């Protein structure tokens, strides 16, 4: 399946942040899908198969760690790079997120341009 634009799935339960990243990414020429819960994130990832996922950790219901683990355990979604963006700033948090399967770890506050450069570097890595 080929798309004209790169599709980024932005997962965050806090709408202002989620919409802020989505708006910025769209402004920068990306396609952005949004999920507010872990379940929603796994569902959308399966249905849309985005090119990148931006994952918050503190989520109602299934949290970001669990969602990341599930996506990385599924053959269909395993290849999708995940950038973890979280307000949890302890050393262990980043480690645990990477262990769950995250490819990048960013601490909030994270400016939209920082997220963008992370996504771009991940995509560049994924292309031959």
């Amino acid at each position, binding site marked *: 399946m080929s798309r004209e634009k790169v599709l980024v799935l932005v997962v965050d339960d806090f709408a202002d942040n989620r919409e802020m990243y989505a*708006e910025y990414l769209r402004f920068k020429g990306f396609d952005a899908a949004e999920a507010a819960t872990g379940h929603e994130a796994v569902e959308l990832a399966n249905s849309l198969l985005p090119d990148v996922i931006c994952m918050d950790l503190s989520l109602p219901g299934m949290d970001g760690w669990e969602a990341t683990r599930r996506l990385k355990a599924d053959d269909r979604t395993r290849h999708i790079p995940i950038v973890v963006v979280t307000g949890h700033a302890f*050393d262990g948090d980043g480690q645990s997120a990477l262990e769950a399967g995250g490819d990048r770890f960013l601490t909030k*506050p994270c400016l939209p341009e920082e997220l963008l450069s992370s996504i771009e570097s991940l995509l560049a890595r994924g292309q031959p």
Partner: protein
Amino acid sequence: MGRSVVTRLSLTSKSEAKLSLLEALLGSDEPAECAERGVDWLVEHGGAEEVLCLQVGAKDPRLVGLAAAGLRNTHYELPEIDLERPDNPFTAAILGRQVVVFEQTRDWRRRFGRLPLSAETLLLVPLFGERTDELPIGALLVAPVAAKVANEARWIAEALGKKLASLRRFEALSDAERRLSNQNAELQHIVNAVSDPLLLTDAEGRMIVANSRAETLFAALDGESDGRRRAIALNNMLFSAALAQVALSGKEIHRRELPLVDPSEGSDLLFEMIASVAAGARENPALVCVLRNVTDLRAATEELESNLHKLRAAEANVRRDRDRLELVIDSVADPILVTDPAGNIVLMNTPAERLFTLRAGANQDAQRAVRANDAQFSSFVSNLFFAAAPRWSAEFSLVDPISGETTPVEGVAGRISTEQGELTAIVTILHDRREAIEKARLYEQLKLASSGLERKVAEATRELVWQNELLQRQHLALEQASKLKSQFLANVSHEFRTPLNAILGYTSMLLQSIGGPLTAHQRKNLERVDSNGRHLLAIINDILDISKIEAGRSSVENGDFDVHELVTEVIAELEPLISRSRLEVGSEIEASVTTVRSDRKKVKQIVLNLMSNALKFTAQGSIRIAALAGPGNGLTIAVFDTGIGIAPEHHSKIFEDFRQVDSSPTREYGGTGLGLAICRRLAGLIGAKLSVESALGVGSCFKLELPRSVP
């Protein structure tokens, strides 16, 4: 003349009869037979009717009937005719040696008894031997009294008297020989019975008599062994030599030792020889030698001497032992007494003497004390006389006669018995108990004090345990509170970041003109929003750092790192600030400082903080960072500045949380006020010490003292 005719007439018949009688007498050795022939002849040829022949007894002077002829009463009894009773007329007649007429008068018969002849008037013819000075050997009583009969009786009496006397002599002679030989045999017997060798020798030493003991030593028999012969020859030689010595000495009785050899065993024997000249043999002098075996005696004597010697040595040993014992018991400080089974004190040492003996000139009190001590001791020791136990101990009091002091003692007495269990002595040691009592008293005091102490310690321990528990509880509560606080701060941090993320994000988007172009005024205001948002973020980051440390979630990772490199790195990172400040910034690193082992990340964070503080609070002048060796084998990193300085009263405050010297809202210097608080905590984590020296308006010096190795 007539007489000669008769003689001649009768010669033919009587001569033959007399001749045959003499022949018969000559041929007989039996007195009774001879007498019988005689009396028979008198009756047959001499005209006698009754004849009785009497003979004097061989041993007693009594007349005994020997033969009779013609007696009507053949069983005759003779009256007592004792030749030693001269009042008897019959005896007198016999001793008168003449043929006399004897009449058995009524008076005679009454006094002396009746003769067995029936005739009252009798011829009494005494019988004699050859020698006329001897007593008669007997008598013939013949009846009837007639001249013719008397002549024949006289003839018979002569022949018979001589015959009986000769027979009696012969008999006596053979008796004497028998006695002599018997005596000889007895003597030999006696001599042999003597257990010692006995010898009789002549003057030349030849043996005349030797008893069997002597023979075994000196007489060789045929067929004896050579060894025995040689031994006997040697003995004879030795004996002869000894005899020669005896002869030389000229003494009547001579004693000397004579060594001989036992011929049968070959062993040495020692004899004492007693030689004496045999009495009554002067012309032919002989020696009687008695040898007494003193071999055993000599051995016994030697043994006795050796025993005596041993006894003396033993006695000396005992004396020495006793001296030593006395020395030992005298050296013992406690009184020691030895009592014999009768209860008498036989031995005591000097300390005992002080208690139990009176000194010269002792006063009455001392005398009383000694008597009292004696009584006490006697009563104590008496326990052991009656008790079966080998030991007895008791406590009692004695009085020192010199000081008059009463001393409590413990007496320990032991029985000393022979192997048979017979009591020989009792040894008593008196131990002064004053020291023991004092010790016991002190011990009691000590125990009391100790138990008091123990009680106090126990109380203190209880208190301590309680306090400890309290502290632990407080500690737990504090820890919990701290954790809660950290958790709370972490949550707060998260909750701050989430909206801050939106604020900074949208601001950034607006400033990038994503929402459309901005006026200069809008841009300026938006930049202020951005700046305050970033400051808020800095505060939140610092709070997060502190809460991380306090929640124990900041681990220490040690490693060796180059100090010079670290300093260069810090200066490089701060380069934008340095260049903007126009201050002179320099570093000095001592040559001896190379590497240090610590948590590089935390050291860098501290140094970075101190340097940025120095840049912040210094308007002009210089900033210097130095790395110095010491204190001890540690390392000091110091940051000097020429800034505003800190008043001494504020030196401790500046390390507190959210503290700046000027904490008013309108303060001149930015910053969260948490930098030094974090540095202090980090220094604590890595075992380092952070301190400040500063003077207001002059400058400050912050020092981080690192231990060379991790504690």
